[in-house]
């Protein structure tokens, strides 16, 4: 795990995230959001969790970002009345960041370097999903079904 790669990915990811949080045009913000998620996936690759990185790219950029774009297109009439950044929120976010950073810097047990590990194969993940994590997997399946049915019911046109 090289330091230079981590720094470059971090700068690109945080810049894209900041753009997503502050840009005025919704479509530009959504594209920056997708770029920030590419940065998160790059971190997952850096942590040798390639499978999760790919899942993140597929689910977030392939599904969630496209869903957001569709919602923007469906609610198009109402763009451009955002009044920009509200300074109270910005102050609170900076305060939370300061508190978190202080807490992280004061914690001694997190100043460790990554151990050497065997690569985590997809086979192992599949085995774990089918043995120790089979109930959570089923629950997530049920939750996804319920959420998607709920989303369909919410957007269905009411019959008059």
């Amino acid at each position, binding site marked *: 795990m090289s*330091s230079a790669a*981590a720094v470059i990915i971090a700068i690109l*990811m*945080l810049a894209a*995230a*900041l753009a*997503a*949080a*502050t840009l005025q045009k*919704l479509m530009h913000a*959504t594209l920056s*959001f997708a770029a*920030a998620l590419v940065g*998160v996936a790059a*971190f997952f690759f850096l*942590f*040798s*969790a390639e*499978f*999760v990185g790919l899942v*993140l790219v597929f*689910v*977030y950029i392939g*599904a*969630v970002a496209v869903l*957001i774009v*569709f919602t923007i297109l469906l*609610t198009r009439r*109402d763009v451009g009345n*955002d009044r920009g950044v*509200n300074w*109270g*929120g910005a102050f*609170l*976010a*900076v305060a*939370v*960041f300061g508190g*978190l950073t202080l807490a*992280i810097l004061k914690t001694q047990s*997190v100043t460790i*370097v*990554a*151990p050497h*590990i*065997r690569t*985590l194969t997809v086979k*192992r*993940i599949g085995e*774990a*999903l089918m043995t120790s994590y089979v109930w*959570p997997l089923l629950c*997530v399946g049920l*939750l*996804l079904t319920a*959420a*998607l049915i709920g*989303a369909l019911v*919410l*957007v269905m046109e009411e019959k008059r």
Partner: protein
Amino acid sequence: MTPTLQTFLIISAALFCIGLLAVLSRRHAIFILIGIEMMLAAANLNFIAFWRFSPQPMPPTGVMIAIFSIAIAAAEAAVGLALVIAVYRHYRTTNVDHLDQLKG
């Protein structure tokens, strides 16, 4: 110099706070959803970082939690965007400042 866990925790705290900034300072419902998704991604980054830096990372617990949390984030985004569309149909706006019918 190899980066320590501390570096990645601070990076993910920064991503979380940018998400918080988007949630607190924007008035458009879709921006608020984008902020929530960024906060969830920061939490996932933390899970994976703690898993990678733990002394015995072989039971892939952090990876599993990240996978489940990504699935739940997808469900949340679907329901959230459906709510945005439903609210838009009803009020003809997605500005959360205008949704004040229940305000006393």
